[in-house]
C-alpha cells in the first residue's frame, strides 16, 4: 500500500521539480544571460506583401478601434491587406466592417461567414487557403497594434527558417478590477521572462494566435490551420516545430489587449486554454518525442514540458491527495518530499508564470508598485489550479464518451460595462 502510494508521489514530485528548475533557469537567464532579439533592429527592408487576418464574432465594441490602429500602421499601404473574418456576428459588426470596406477600398476586406464550423480555428482554416501573401499576421479583434508593430512582426520572416513569430501582449484595461491587475502581472511574467528566455536559449517560444503570424509556405507545408483545434495557436506551434520550422518571439513587439475583467470569463478562458493545450499534448507528445533525431534534444525536452504545462495542475492535486492519503494511512513521508512538493507547487504552476518570474518581469519592465499585489496571485493560482484540473477531467470524460468540444468566445469590455461573465 505504502509503495503504491509513494511511487506515483515520487514521480509527481520529480515532474514538478523539473518544472521548477526550468523556471529558475528561465529567470536567471533573463536576469543575467545574453538576450537574443536578432530581428528587432531591421528597420529598413524590402517589406513583403502581408495579409492581416482578424477573426471577429460580435465585436462591435472593439473592431473599429482595431481597424483604425491597423490603418495607422507605417507598413507600406500597398503591401498590406486587412481581412476581417466576420464569423456570423449578430450585432453591428457586419455594418461596421462594410463601412470600413467602403471607406478603405482594397485595404479592408471583410469576409462574412454564415456557415461552416464556428470558432477562430475554423475561420482561419477557411480563409487561409485564399491568402496569397507569403506572410500572414493574425490579430484578435480587441487588440490595438502600434504603428510600427507590423514591420516588427514581419522582420523575422526574412530568416527562411522562421515559420511563425509571436509578439508581446500587454494588458490595457488593468485598472478595472483586481483580476485585471493580476492578469497584468501574469502576462508580464509569461512574456517578459518565460517567452524571452525560451527565445534566448533556442527552445520553443509559443506562437500565441494573436500579435503574431505565420509564413504561408510553412502553413501549407504543415497542412494549414486545423478547424477542430481548440487552441489553434498551440497546435500550429507544434506542427511547425515538428516539421523543422522555428517559432520566434519578439519581446519588443508589444501590443495592447483587453484581459478578462470578471472571474467567470477568466475561468472559461483558462478552461479553454487547458483543453486546447491538452489536445495538443495528445496530438504532438509522441511526434515530438520521435523527432529527437532531427531536432535538438533541448527543443524536444522543452517542447514536451511546454505541452504538459496544463497537466501540472491535476498532477499537483493528485500529489497532495497522495501525500494526504499516506499521512492518514499511517505512513510518514520521508526524504523531505512534502516540502519539495510544496515549494515546487508555489513555483511551478504559479498562475502559469511562477511568482519569481512575475517579480523578475516587474523589475525588467521597470514597474514599481504593482509588484505589491504579488501575494494576491495566490488567489489566481488557486482558481487556475482548480479550473485547469476540472477542465482536464471533463475533457477526459468527454473524450471517452466521444463528445465534441465547442469554442467559447471571450467577452469584451471596451464600453466600460465590466462584462456579464457569460450570463445572458
Amino acid at each position, binding site marked *: 500500500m505504502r509503495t503504491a502510494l509513494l511511487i506515483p508521489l515520487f514521480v509527481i514530485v520529480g515532474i514538478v521539480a523539473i518544472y521548477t528548475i526550468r523556471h529558475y533557469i528561465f529567470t536567471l537567464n533573463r536576469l543575467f544571460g545574453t538576450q537574443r532579439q536578432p530581428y528587432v533592429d531591421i*528597420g529598413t*527592408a524590402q517589406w513583403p506583401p502581408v495579409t492581416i487576418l482578424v477573426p471577429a464574432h460580435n465585436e462591435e465594441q472593439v473592431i473599429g478601434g482595431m481597424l483604425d490602429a491597423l490603418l495607422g500602421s507605417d507598413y507600406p499601404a500597398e503591401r498590406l491587406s486587412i481581412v476581417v473574418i466576420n464569423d456570423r456576428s449578430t450585432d453591428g459588426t457586419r455594418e461596421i466592417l462594410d463601412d470600413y470596406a467602403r471607406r478603405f477600398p482594397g485595404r479592408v476586406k471583410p469576409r462574412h461567414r454564415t456557415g461552416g464550423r464556428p470558432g477562430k480555428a475554423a475561420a482561419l482554416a477557411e480563409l487561409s487557403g485564399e491568402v496569397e501573401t507569403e506572410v500572414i499576421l493574425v490579430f484578435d479583434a480587441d487588440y490595438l497594434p502600434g504603428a510600427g508593430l507590423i514591420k516588427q512582426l514581419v522582420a523575422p520572416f526574412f*530568416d527562411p*527558417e522562421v515559420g511563425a513569430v509571436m509578439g508581446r501582449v500587454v*494588458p490595457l484595461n488593468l485598472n478595472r478590477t483586481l483580476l485585471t491587475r493580476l492578469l497584468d502581472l501574469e502576462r508580464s511574467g509569461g512574456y517578459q521572462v518565460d517567452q524571452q528566455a525560451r527565445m534566448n536559449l533556442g527552445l520553443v517560444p509559443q506562437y500565441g494566435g494573436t500579435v503574431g503570424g505565420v509564413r504561408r509556405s510553412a502553413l*501549407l507545408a504543415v497542412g494549414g490551420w486545423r478547424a477542430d483545434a481548440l487552441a489553434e495557436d498551440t497546435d500550429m506551434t507544434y506542427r511547425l516545430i515538428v516539421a*523543422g520550422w522555428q517559432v520566434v518571439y519578439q519581446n519588443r513587439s*508589444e501590443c495592447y489587449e483587453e484581459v478578462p475583467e470578471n472571474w467567470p470569463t477568466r475561468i472559461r478562458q483558462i478552461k479553454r486554454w487547458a483543453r486546447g493545450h491538452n489536445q495538443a499534448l495528445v496530438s504532438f507528445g509522441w511526434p515530438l518525442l520521435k523527432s529527437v533525431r532531427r531536432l535538438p534534444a533541448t527543443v524536444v525536452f522543452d517542447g514536451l514540458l511546454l505541452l504538459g504545462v496544463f497537466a501540472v495542475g491535476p498532477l499537483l492535486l493528485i500529489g497532495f491527495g497522495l501525500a494526504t492519503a499516506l499521512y492518514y494511512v499511517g505512513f510518514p513521508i520521508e526524504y523531505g518530499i512534502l516540502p519539495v512538493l510544496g515549494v515546487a507547487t508555489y513555483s511551478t504552476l504559479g498562475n502559469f508564470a511562477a511568482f519569481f518570474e512575475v517579480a523578475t518581469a516587474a523589475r525588467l519592465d521597470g514597474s514599481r508598485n504593482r509588484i*505589491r*499585489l504579488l501575494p494576491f496571485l495566490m488567489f489566481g493560482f488557486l482558481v487556475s489550479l482548480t479550473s485547469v484540473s476540472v477542465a482536464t477531467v471533463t475533457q477526459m470524460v468527454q473524450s471517452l464518451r466521444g463528445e465534441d468540444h465547442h469554442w467559447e468566445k471571450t467577452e469584451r469590455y471596451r464600453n466600460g460595462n465590466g462584462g456579464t461573465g457569460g450570463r445572458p
Partner: protein
Amino acid sequence: MNLWYGLAFAAMTVGWFLLPLVPAILELLHPSDVAPLRVVPRDAGDVSFLARGFRQYLGRQMNLLPAATPADFLGRLPDGTHFARVKAGPDVLRPGEPGTTQDRVVRVDTPIALAGNQTFLQEVHATEDFVGGPQTVYRALLGERRITLGERSRVLRWVHAGGALTIGGESALQGRISSDESVTVGPGVEFDRIGAPEIRTTGSAAPARAAATGGWQLPDGARRIGDHHRIDGDLEIGAGVKVIGSLVVTGRLTVRQGAEIHGSVKVHGDVTIERAAAIRGSLVGRRNVVVGPAAEVLGPVIGDGEVSLGDGSSVGRGDAQTTVAAGTLKLGRGVAVFGQIMARDGGRTTN
C-alpha cells in the same frame, strides 16, 4: 487564562500570515501603479527620430521668441534654455578660436567652417552647410544641408543631415547617425547606428562582378522543408556555382568565390561569403558572418555575433534599401550599405 493565551497565539499567527498582504491590500485600496505598461514607441527604431524631435522643439521655441529678436542673438529660449543664434556674425561661436566650449543650444543660419577642438554641450542646428573642425565634440547636431565632421570628432547622441554627411577618420559616433541623402565614413571610425539611403566607407568601389553559371547539386541528406532546403552539418558551395532557392545550414557555410545564391540563407554556425560571391536574398547567421571583398548581399544581413563586410562589398541596392544588424560590425574600405546599419555592441571601419 489558557483561552486568552490561545486567542493571543491565534491572533499573532493570523497577523503574521496577513503581514505580507498589507502592502498588497494598500495597493488594492489605493492604486498607485495602474497605468498600462508603455509599449515601445512607434519611432524607436527610426534612426533620425531624435533629430526630428529636436527640430520640432527648436521650431516651437523660436516661434515664441519676440519678433524683434536680432539675427545674431545670445540669450535664452522661452523655456529658459541658453541659446545662441548665428547669422551675420559667426564670431558668436568664435569659429577661428580653438578650444572653446559652448554650453548652449546653437542655431547657425549661415554656412560655417569651425576651427576644431571645440565642445558643444548642447544641440547644434545648422540651416546651411556645416563644416566641423577636427577633435570637436558634439552632443547632437542637426544640419538641414551638408555636414562634414573633421577627423577625430566625437558625437555623444546623434547627428542628422538633410544633405550629404561626411565623417572624418578616427571619429567616435555614439548613438544615431543619419542623413536623408548619404553618409560617408572615414577610416578608423567607431559607430553604433547609421541610417541613410547610401552609406559608404572611404575607398574605391569594387568592379562589377561576373554572373555565376555553374550548376549545383543538393548534398546528400538535404531535406526540403516548405520553401527552403535544410542541410544538417557543414556546406560548401563551389566557386562560380549558381544556387536557386533558400537554404538553412545547421553547421558552417562557405560560399566560394563568384558563386551566387538566388534565395535567402540561414546558417547556425559561422558563414563565409568569399570574394565576389552574391546572395540574392537575406543572410542570417547565428554566429559570425564574413562577407568577402566585392561580394554582394541583397539583404538584410543579420548576425548574432561579429559581421565583417570586406573591401568593396555591398549590402542592398539603391532601389532596394535594407538593414545590416550585428553584434559587432567591421566595415572594410569602399563598402556600400544602402539603408541602415545597427551594431549592438559597436562597429568600426578599418584603418
